[in-house]
Protein backbone atom coordinates (compact mmCIF):
# COMPACT_ATOMS: atom_id res chain seq x y z
CA UNK A 1 0.00 0.00 0.00
CA UNK A 2 2.81 2.41 0.89
CA UNK A 3 4.61 1.50 -2.34
CA UNK A 4 1.48 2.33 -4.35
CA UNK A 5 1.03 5.66 -2.53
CA UNK A 6 4.68 6.46 -3.11
CA UNK A 7 4.27 5.75 -6.81
CA UNK A 8 1.27 8.13 -7.00
CA UNK A 9 3.24 10.87 -5.21
CA UNK A 10 6.32 10.26 -7.37
CA UNK A 11 4.21 10.72 -10.50
CA UNK A 12 2.74 13.91 -9.07
CA UNK A 13 6.23 15.16 -8.19
CA UNK A 14 7.48 14.29 -11.67
CA UNK A 15 4.47 16.11 -13.09
CA UNK A 16 5.20 19.24 -11.03
CA UNK A 17 8.81 19.23 -12.21
CA UNK A 18 7.91 18.81 -15.89
CA UNK A 19 5.20 21.50 -15.76
CA UNK A 20 7.58 24.01 -14.20
CA UNK A 21 10.58 23.21 -16.39
CA UNK A 22 8.54 23.44 -19.59
CA UNK A 23 6.26 26.25 -18.33
CA UNK A 24 3.14 24.26 -19.35
CA UNK A 25 -0.32 25.73 -18.56
CA UNK A 26 -1.23 22.58 -16.60
CA UNK A 27 -1.41 21.61 -12.94
CA UNK A 28 1.31 19.18 -11.83
CA UNK A 29 -1.13 16.37 -10.89
CA UNK A 30 -2.63 16.31 -14.41
CA UNK A 31 0.88 15.94 -15.88
CA UNK A 32 1.43 13.23 -13.24
CA UNK A 33 -1.70 11.45 -14.50
CA UNK A 34 -0.24 11.43 -18.01
CA UNK A 35 3.08 10.10 -16.69
CA UNK A 36 1.39 7.26 -14.79
CA UNK A 37 -0.88 6.37 -17.72
CA UNK A 38 2.11 6.25 -20.08
CA UNK A 39 4.08 4.17 -17.58
CA UNK A 40 1.24 1.68 -17.13
CA UNK A 41 0.71 1.44 -20.89
CA UNK A 42 4.39 0.54 -21.32
CA UNK A 43 4.35 -1.84 -18.33
CA UNK A 44 1.31 -3.54 -19.82
CA UNK A 45 -0.82 -4.07 -16.71
CA UNK A 46 -1.94 -2.32 -13.49
CA UNK A 47 -0.24 -3.79 -10.38
CA UNK A 48 -2.83 -5.10 -7.89
CA UNK A 49 -1.72 -2.92 -4.94
CA UNK A 50 -1.83 0.23 -7.08
CA UNK A 51 -5.30 -0.71 -8.26
CA UNK A 52 -6.70 -1.24 -4.77
CA UNK A 53 -5.20 1.97 -3.35
CA UNK A 54 -6.38 4.03 -6.34
CA UNK A 55 -9.87 2.55 -6.26
CA UNK A 56 -10.10 3.39 -2.56
CA UNK A 57 -9.06 7.00 -3.16
CA UNK A 58 -11.30 7.50 -6.21
CA UNK A 59 -14.32 6.04 -4.44
CA UNK A 60 -14.05 8.96 -2.01
CA UNK A 61 -13.13 11.62 -4.54
CA UNK A 62 -16.04 13.82 -3.41
CA UNK A 63 -14.49 14.18 0.07
CA UNK A 64 -11.38 15.88 -1.33
CA UNK A 65 -13.47 18.75 -2.72
CA UNK A 66 -15.05 19.64 0.61
CA UNK A 67 -12.27 21.94 1.97
CA UNK A 68 -12.19 24.04 -1.25
CA UNK A 69 -15.96 24.10 -1.30
CA UNK A 70 -16.15 25.52 2.23
CA UNK A 71 -14.08 28.45 0.84
CA UNK A 72 -17.38 29.91 -0.40
CA UNK A 73 -17.65 31.66 2.97
CA UNK A 74 -14.67 33.90 2.05
CA UNK A 75 -16.53 35.37 -0.94
CA UNK A 76 -19.89 36.19 0.64
CA UNK A 77 -19.53 39.99 0.17
CA UNK A 78 -18.92 39.74 -3.55
CA UNK A 79 -21.66 37.14 -3.93
CA UNK A 80 -24.14 39.54 -2.31
CA UNK A 81 -23.51 42.16 -5.02
CA UNK A 82 -23.15 40.01 -8.12
CA UNK A 83 -24.54 36.70 -6.89
CA UNK A 84 -27.50 36.64 -9.28
CA UNK A 85 -25.48 37.40 -12.42
CA UNK A 86 -22.87 34.81 -11.45
CA UNK A 87 -25.47 32.17 -10.56
CA UNK A 88 -27.45 32.66 -13.79
CA UNK A 89 -24.23 32.52 -15.79
CA UNK A 90 -23.18 29.25 -14.13
CA UNK A 91 -26.60 27.65 -14.62
CA UNK A 92 -26.87 28.65 -18.28
CA UNK A 93 -23.28 27.83 -19.14
CA UNK A 94 -23.08 24.48 -17.35
CA UNK A 95 -26.31 23.20 -18.90
CA UNK A 96 -25.28 24.49 -22.35
CA UNK A 97 -21.81 22.95 -22.12
CA UNK A 98 -23.14 19.55 -21.04
CA UNK A 99 -25.85 19.57 -23.71
CA UNK A 100 -23.49 20.54 -26.55
CA UNK A 101 -20.80 18.09 -25.42
CA UNK A 102 -23.17 15.12 -25.08
CA UNK A 103 -25.00 15.80 -28.36
CA UNK A 104 -21.80 16.31 -30.38
CA UNK A 105 -20.34 13.17 -28.79
CA UNK A 106 -23.43 11.12 -29.69
CA UNK A 107 -23.65 12.55 -33.22
CA UNK A 108 -19.97 11.83 -33.91
CA UNK A 109 -20.23 8.31 -32.45
CA UNK A 110 -23.16 7.52 -34.75
CA UNK A 111 -21.30 8.93 -37.78
CA UNK A 112 -18.18 6.87 -37.01
CA UNK A 113 -20.19 3.68 -36.44
CA UNK A 114 -22.20 4.19 -39.64
CA UNK A 115 -19.11 4.70 -41.82
CA UNK A 116 -17.53 1.60 -40.23
CA UNK A 117 -20.53 -0.60 -41.06
CA UNK A 118 -20.66 0.82 -44.59
CA UNK A 119 -17.05 -0.20 -45.16
CA UNK A 120 -18.22 -3.72 -44.49
CA UNK A 121 -16.83 -6.55 -42.42
CA UNK A 122 -13.25 -5.99 -43.65
CA UNK A 123 -12.27 -4.56 -40.26
Amino acid at each position, binding site marked *: MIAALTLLLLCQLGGEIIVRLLALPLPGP*VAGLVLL*AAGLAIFGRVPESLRSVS*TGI*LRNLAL*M*FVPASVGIITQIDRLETYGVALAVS*IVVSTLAA*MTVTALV*FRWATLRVNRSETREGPAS
Partner: protein
Amino acid sequence: MTNVESLWVYLHETPLLWLTVTLAAYTIADGISARAGRRPIANPIVIATALIIAALLATDTDYKTYFSGAQFVHFILGPATVALAIPLVDNFKQIRRAAVPITLALVAGSATAIVTAVGTAWLLGAPHELLMSLAPKSVTTPIAMGLSQTLGGLPSLTAVLVVATGIFGAITVTPLMNLLKVTDPAARGFAVGLASHGMGTARAFQANVLAGSFAGLAMGLNGLMTALLVPLLTLLF
Protein backbone atom coordinates in the same frame (compact mmCIF):
# COMPACT_ATOMS: atom_id res chain seq x y z
CA MET B 1 -15.38 27.04 33.40
CA THR B 2 -12.00 28.56 32.59
CA ASN B 3 -10.70 25.05 32.05
CA VAL B 4 -13.36 24.39 29.47
CA GLU B 5 -12.59 27.73 27.86
CA SER B 6 -8.86 27.14 27.64
CA LEU B 7 -9.49 23.64 26.32
CA TRP B 8 -11.72 25.14 23.62
CA VAL B 9 -9.13 27.81 22.77
CA TYR B 10 -6.56 25.05 22.37
CA LEU B 11 -8.77 22.70 20.32
CA HIS B 12 -10.13 25.48 18.17
CA GLU B 13 -6.65 26.28 16.84
CA THR B 14 -5.44 22.73 16.35
CA PRO B 15 -5.61 21.11 12.88
CA LEU B 16 -6.93 17.93 14.53
CA LEU B 17 -10.32 19.48 15.31
CA TRP B 18 -11.08 20.75 11.79
CA LEU B 19 -9.71 17.65 10.11
CA THR B 20 -12.00 15.56 12.29
CA VAL B 21 -14.95 17.87 11.61
CA THR B 22 -14.33 17.57 7.86
CA LEU B 23 -14.25 13.77 7.94
CA ALA B 24 -17.22 13.58 10.30
CA ALA B 25 -19.29 15.96 8.16
CA TYR B 26 -18.45 13.93 5.07
CA THR B 27 -19.34 10.65 6.78
CA ILE B 28 -22.74 12.06 7.77
CA ALA B 29 -23.25 13.59 4.30
CA ASP B 30 -22.32 10.35 2.55
CA GLY B 31 -24.73 8.47 4.82
CA ILE B 32 -27.55 10.87 3.94
CA SER B 33 -26.69 10.57 0.23
CA ALA B 34 -26.77 6.77 0.47
CA ARG B 35 -30.12 6.79 2.32
CA ALA B 36 -31.50 9.11 -0.37
CA GLY B 37 -30.63 6.41 -2.90
CA ARG B 38 -27.73 8.54 -4.30
CA ARG B 39 -30.27 10.94 -5.77
CA PRO B 40 -28.32 13.78 -7.40
CA ILE B 41 -29.94 16.46 -5.22
CA ALA B 42 -28.50 14.81 -2.08
CA ASN B 43 -24.96 15.66 -3.17
CA PRO B 44 -22.48 14.68 -0.41
CA ILE B 45 -20.21 17.68 -1.17
CA VAL B 46 -23.10 20.13 -0.70
CA ILE B 47 -24.33 18.51 2.51
CA ALA B 48 -20.84 18.27 4.04
CA THR B 49 -20.07 21.88 3.07
CA ALA B 50 -23.31 23.14 4.61
CA LEU B 51 -22.64 21.23 7.86
CA ILE B 52 -19.09 22.60 8.10
CA ILE B 53 -20.09 26.19 7.31
CA ALA B 54 -22.75 25.95 10.02
CA ALA B 55 -20.07 24.76 12.46
CA LEU B 56 -17.68 27.56 11.45
CA LEU B 57 -20.36 30.23 11.84
CA ALA B 58 -21.55 28.82 15.17
CA THR B 59 -18.01 28.85 16.60
CA ASP B 60 -16.94 32.11 14.90
CA THR B 61 -14.03 30.37 13.16
CA ASP B 62 -12.40 31.84 10.05
CA TYR B 63 -11.59 29.89 6.90
CA LYS B 64 -7.83 30.09 7.47
CA THR B 65 -8.11 28.29 10.81
CA TYR B 66 -10.45 25.73 9.26
CA PHE B 67 -8.11 25.12 6.33
CA SER B 68 -5.12 24.48 8.63
CA GLY B 69 -6.86 21.18 9.45
CA ALA B 70 -8.71 20.58 6.20
CA GLN B 71 -5.56 20.98 4.11
CA PHE B 72 -4.67 17.33 4.77
CA VAL B 73 -7.82 16.23 2.95
CA HIS B 74 -7.31 18.89 0.28
CA PHE B 75 -3.78 17.57 -0.31
CA ILE B 76 -5.05 14.13 -1.36
CA LEU B 77 -6.63 15.76 -4.43
CA GLY B 78 -3.16 15.63 -6.03
CA PRO B 79 -2.55 11.86 -5.77
CA ALA B 80 -6.28 11.31 -6.49
CA THR B 81 -5.88 13.12 -9.80
CA VAL B 82 -2.85 10.97 -10.63
CA ALA B 83 -4.89 7.86 -9.70
CA LEU B 84 -7.37 8.70 -12.49
CA ALA B 85 -4.73 7.14 -14.75
CA ILE B 86 -5.87 3.66 -13.69
CA PRO B 87 -9.48 3.75 -14.99
CA LEU B 88 -8.10 5.58 -18.03
CA VAL B 89 -5.68 2.75 -18.82
CA ASP B 90 -8.35 0.13 -18.07
CA ASN B 91 -10.68 1.72 -20.62
CA PHE B 92 -7.99 2.65 -23.10
CA LYS B 93 -9.50 0.56 -25.93
CA GLN B 94 -12.89 2.26 -25.67
CA ILE B 95 -11.24 5.67 -25.42
CA ARG B 96 -9.09 5.08 -28.50
CA ARG B 97 -12.14 3.90 -30.45
CA ALA B 98 -13.92 7.13 -29.45
CA ALA B 99 -11.07 9.44 -30.54
CA VAL B 100 -13.21 11.30 -33.10
CA PRO B 101 -16.22 11.97 -30.83
CA ILE B 102 -13.83 12.94 -28.02
CA THR B 103 -12.03 15.52 -30.15
CA LEU B 104 -15.17 17.09 -31.64
CA ALA B 105 -17.09 17.14 -28.34
CA LEU B 106 -14.07 18.62 -26.57
CA VAL B 107 -13.70 21.59 -28.93
CA ALA B 108 -17.46 22.29 -29.11
CA GLY B 109 -18.08 21.82 -25.39
CA SER B 110 -15.08 23.81 -24.21
CA ALA B 111 -15.93 26.80 -26.43
CA THR B 112 -19.59 26.64 -25.35
CA ALA B 113 -18.66 26.62 -21.65
CA ILE B 114 -16.46 29.71 -21.96
CA VAL B 115 -18.61 31.79 -24.33
CA THR B 116 -21.96 31.15 -22.60
CA ALA B 117 -20.50 31.84 -19.13
CA VAL B 118 -18.87 35.13 -20.08
CA GLY B 119 -21.68 36.14 -22.47
CA THR B 120 -24.47 35.62 -19.94
CA ALA B 121 -22.70 37.55 -17.19
CA TRP B 122 -21.82 40.32 -19.65
CA LEU B 123 -25.49 40.65 -20.65
CA LEU B 124 -26.38 40.90 -16.95
CA GLY B 125 -23.93 43.76 -16.51
CA ALA B 126 -21.13 42.07 -14.57
CA PRO B 127 -17.85 44.05 -14.57
CA HIS B 128 -14.73 42.98 -16.48
CA GLU B 129 -12.89 41.33 -13.58
CA LEU B 130 -15.92 39.15 -12.87
CA LEU B 131 -16.15 38.07 -16.52
CA MET B 132 -12.51 37.05 -16.44
CA SER B 133 -13.07 35.20 -13.16
CA LEU B 134 -15.93 33.27 -14.77
CA ALA B 135 -14.22 32.31 -18.04
CA PRO B 136 -12.27 29.29 -16.72
CA LYS B 137 -15.01 28.10 -14.30
CA SER B 138 -15.48 24.66 -15.94
CA VAL B 139 -11.94 23.44 -15.35
CA THR B 140 -10.20 21.99 -12.33
CA THR B 141 -9.32 24.54 -9.60
CA PRO B 142 -5.52 24.82 -10.04
CA ILE B 143 -5.80 25.51 -13.80
CA ALA B 144 -8.81 27.81 -13.35
CA MET B 145 -7.12 29.94 -10.70
CA GLY B 146 -3.96 30.28 -12.79
CA LEU B 147 -5.96 31.32 -15.88
CA SER B 148 -8.07 33.78 -13.88
CA GLN B 149 -4.90 35.46 -12.63
CA THR B 150 -3.44 35.72 -16.16
CA LEU B 151 -6.69 37.22 -17.50
CA GLY B 152 -7.01 39.83 -14.78
CA GLY B 153 -9.76 38.06 -12.81
CA LEU B 154 -9.93 37.30 -9.10
CA PRO B 155 -8.46 33.82 -8.43
CA SER B 156 -10.20 33.42 -5.04
CA LEU B 157 -13.57 34.18 -6.64
CA THR B 158 -12.77 31.80 -9.47
CA ALA B 159 -12.17 29.02 -6.92
CA VAL B 160 -15.70 29.55 -5.61
CA LEU B 161 -17.22 29.67 -9.12
CA VAL B 162 -15.41 26.44 -9.99
CA VAL B 163 -16.93 24.77 -6.95
CA ALA B 164 -20.42 26.08 -7.74
CA THR B 165 -20.12 24.87 -11.34
CA GLY B 166 -18.93 21.47 -10.18
CA ILE B 167 -21.81 21.05 -7.77
CA PHE B 168 -24.44 22.30 -10.21
CA GLY B 169 -23.20 20.00 -12.99
CA ALA B 170 -23.01 17.00 -10.67
CA ILE B 171 -26.61 17.58 -9.55
CA THR B 172 -28.12 18.25 -12.98
CA VAL B 173 -26.24 15.84 -15.25
CA THR B 174 -28.49 12.81 -14.70
CA PRO B 175 -31.86 14.55 -15.31
CA LEU B 176 -30.39 16.54 -18.22
CA MET B 177 -28.98 13.47 -19.97
CA ASN B 178 -32.26 11.59 -19.43
CA LEU B 179 -34.11 14.54 -20.93
CA LEU B 180 -31.78 14.56 -23.97
CA LYS B 181 -32.12 10.76 -24.19
CA VAL B 182 -28.33 10.35 -24.14
CA THR B 183 -27.84 6.84 -22.72
CA ASP B 184 -24.20 6.12 -23.65
CA PRO B 185 -22.18 6.26 -20.38
CA ALA B 186 -19.17 7.49 -22.37
CA ALA B 187 -21.08 10.53 -23.68
CA ARG B 188 -22.70 11.23 -20.29
CA GLY B 189 -19.38 10.97 -18.45
CA PHE B 190 -17.51 13.05 -21.01
CA ALA B 191 -20.13 15.82 -20.82
CA VAL B 192 -20.11 16.10 -17.03
CA GLY B 193 -16.31 15.87 -16.78
CA LEU B 194 -15.91 18.61 -19.38
CA ALA B 195 -18.46 20.99 -17.83
CA SER B 196 -17.89 20.20 -14.16
CA HIS B 197 -14.29 18.93 -13.80
CA GLY B 198 -13.46 16.76 -10.75
CA MET B 199 -16.80 17.13 -9.00
CA GLY B 200 -18.56 15.99 -12.15
CA THR B 201 -16.03 13.16 -12.37
CA ALA B 202 -16.81 12.14 -8.79
CA ARG B 203 -20.50 12.03 -9.71
CA ALA B 204 -19.78 9.99 -12.87
CA PHE B 205 -17.86 7.41 -10.81
CA GLN B 206 -20.97 7.01 -8.65
CA ALA B 207 -22.86 5.97 -11.80
CA ASN B 208 -20.26 3.63 -13.30
CA VAL B 209 -16.53 3.23 -13.94
CA LEU B 210 -16.74 3.74 -17.71
CA ALA B 211 -18.57 7.06 -17.26
CA GLY B 212 -16.01 8.00 -14.61
CA SER B 213 -13.09 7.25 -16.94
CA PHE B 214 -14.51 9.41 -19.71
CA ALA B 215 -15.27 12.15 -17.16
CA GLY B 216 -11.68 12.12 -15.89
CA LEU B 217 -10.42 12.22 -19.45
CA ALA B 218 -12.71 15.16 -20.28
CA MET B 219 -11.57 17.01 -17.17
CA GLY B 220 -7.91 16.73 -18.17
CA LEU B 221 -8.47 17.57 -21.84
CA ASN B 222 -10.73 20.53 -21.08
CA GLY B 223 -8.10 21.92 -18.72
CA LEU B 224 -5.75 22.06 -21.70
CA MET B 225 -8.37 23.26 -24.20
CA THR B 226 -9.59 26.06 -21.92
CA ALA B 227 -6.01 27.19 -21.32
CA LEU B 228 -5.65 27.48 -25.10
CA LEU B 229 -9.05 29.13 -25.79
CA VAL B 230 -9.44 31.55 -22.89
CA PRO B 231 -6.64 33.96 -23.90
CA LEU B 232 -8.69 34.64 -27.08
CA LEU B 233 -11.35 36.21 -24.82
CA THR B 234 -9.18 39.20 -24.07
CA LEU B 235 -9.59 40.09 -27.75
CA LEU B 236 -13.41 40.13 -27.35
CA PHE B 237 -14.09 41.74 -23.97
